[in-house]
């Protein structure tokens, strides 16, 4: 009996390995290891650390695509909101800490900052859903993907320029969250900020995964993504779930923004680069596939690191775009497959 189960699992693993998803994951790992042997440990470490952060942004994007069926172009702007909130919350904290270095805030301050950004990001998501997307949904669901996409384009323009108008265009940045010596792994140094940001990303990704698969609300979100009418029929309040999803997705972006403030100072169009990265990841992994996005983030990170390593800085736009074009040609639904109905069926 046990043997049989083992054999079954083994067979499934083998089958997965032979699928496209399995092959790419294995290839990614192998390439990463080879490059590491060739150039040194920093390749691997950089990939992992960069990948973790990209995952946070990409996951939110995949969520809006998968559940709300909105190809979000304004996702970077919620990242921007995250950086903005974090800047205004953390600056006074760090001033206080610089005069009271022993205070508990030296360690907890950054976390407080990130939580604040998360809350404001979620509220921004709620506002956009109520004021923008729900209005369109009420009026017409026809051609939804395209219309909602244009809405997000408009939203992005509005948010960027609102930042410019109310907070000015200067760079609002900080030195770092946690002071102290960098960690060192495999002879590679990683600053505390990056290390903790990575851990934070890992925790958030894990918590999010748990939430989506095992909780009642998480399941309801997935149900809505697969069939809205069906969800209504079993008693799931659609509006509530859509609102929740939007705020979750925006909160994820805001966490990423706040967590990376030490690298991306806040300014109006800071969200563009994370947005492009997130889109790369989401297309690569499959539109709307939230967990695939996590894997995809690491692949894109590796691609970026390798491009800089072997081709040169500044090509990290051209090479991923070219690769994604190739992927779209051969596997339009992405490596891990797409879960979006409206996009695939229409």
């Amino acid at each position, binding site marked *: 009996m046990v043997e049989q189960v083992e054999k079954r699992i083994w067979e499934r693993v083998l089958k997965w390995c032979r699928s496209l998803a399995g092959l790419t994951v294995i290839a990614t790992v192998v390439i990463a290891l080879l490059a590491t042997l060739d150039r040194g440990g920093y390749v691997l470490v950089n990939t992992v650390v960069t990948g973790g952060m990209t995952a946070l942004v990409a996951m939110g994007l995949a969520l809006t695509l998968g559940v709300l069926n909105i190809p979000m172009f304004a996702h970077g702007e919620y990242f921007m909101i995250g950086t903005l909130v974090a800047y205004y919350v953390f600056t006074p904290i760090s001033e206080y800490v610089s005069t009271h270095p022993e205070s508990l805030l030296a360690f907890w301050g950054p976390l407080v900052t990130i939580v604040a950004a998360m809350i404001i990001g979620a509220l921004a998501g709620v506002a956009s859903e109520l004021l923008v997307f729900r209005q369109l949904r009420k009026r017409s669901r026809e051609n939804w993907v395209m219309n909602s996409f244009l809405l997000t384009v408009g939203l992005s323009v509005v948010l960027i320029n609102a930042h410019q108008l109310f907070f000015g265009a200067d760079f609002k940045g900080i030195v770092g969250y946690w002071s102290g010596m960098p960690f060192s792994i495999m002879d590679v140094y990683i600053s505390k900020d990056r290390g903790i940001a990575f851990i934070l990303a890992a925790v958030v990704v894990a918590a999010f995964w748990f939430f989506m698969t095992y909780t009642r609300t998480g399941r*309801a979100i*997935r*149900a809505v993504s*697969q069939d809205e009418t*069906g969800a*209504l029929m*079993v*008693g799931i309040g659609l*509006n509530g779930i859509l609102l929740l999803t939007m705020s979750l997705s925006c909160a994820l972006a805001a966490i990423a923004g706040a967590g990376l403030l030490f690298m991306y100072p806040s300014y109006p169009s800071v969200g563009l680069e994370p947005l492009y990265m997130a889109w790369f990841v989401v297309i690569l992994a499959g539109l709307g596939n939230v967990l695939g996005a996590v894997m995809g983030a690491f692949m894109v990170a590796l691609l970026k690191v390798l491009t800089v390593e072997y081709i040169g800085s500044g090509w990290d736009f051209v090479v991923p775009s070219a690769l994604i074009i190739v992927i779209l040609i051969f596997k339009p639904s992405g490596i891990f497959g797409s879960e979006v109905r409206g996009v695939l069926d229409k």
Partner: protein
Amino acid sequence: MLLEVKRLNAGYGFLQILRDVSLTVDTGEYVCLVGPNGAGKSTTLKTIAGLVTPMGGEIRFDGENIGGLPGNQVARRGISLVSEAMNLFVNMTVQENLAMGAYTIRDKKAQKDRLDFVYDLFPRLVERRNQLAGTMSGGERKMLAIGRGLMPNPKLLLVDEPSFGLAPLLTENVFQSLDTLVSQGVTIMLVEQNVTKTLAVTDRGYVLENGRIELSGKSSDLACDAHVRKVFLGV
């Protein structure tokens, strides 16, 4: 009366489909709604289930007016719809689909009981419990859809065209399951194209034409009615 629909008007956008539809269903009854294509049968069910907003009229369920409530609120009050399109969650397993069906039940024990009930009714679903709904055959999906509709232990089950696109063998199975349910005391309102068959199994029926109720009565009487025979059987 469990369900009382009074002078219901409904439609899509500016297009009105239902005109002054009135009907009633009593607890424990097996009622059918028949009518030619495009008469508005599915629209009636969808309006009762809250998926289409009524333009006028009243829907009383258990004495409460539920007209205009959104679908989830209606579902919470004990009405379950098994729609034509089934609306399954295709990327979830059978078990997860059933669990979603019991979304309104928070009590773990009660959920378990319902699951056992459904699995008893459709042993085939037990075998398939870890399969993704999207990969199941048409008939299995129909069973799953009915099973999911039964999960919340509804006071009223609305079933829309259970035989649509099903092979004869499976159609037979589905009808048998519905019979079993009725004998277990579930109230059912059935919409079905196969009029002869439908009128043979149900207690009472309504005939809907062009969005209006044209006839109603005991199913056995309707089966002999000249008008019904002319419209549906062409004789």
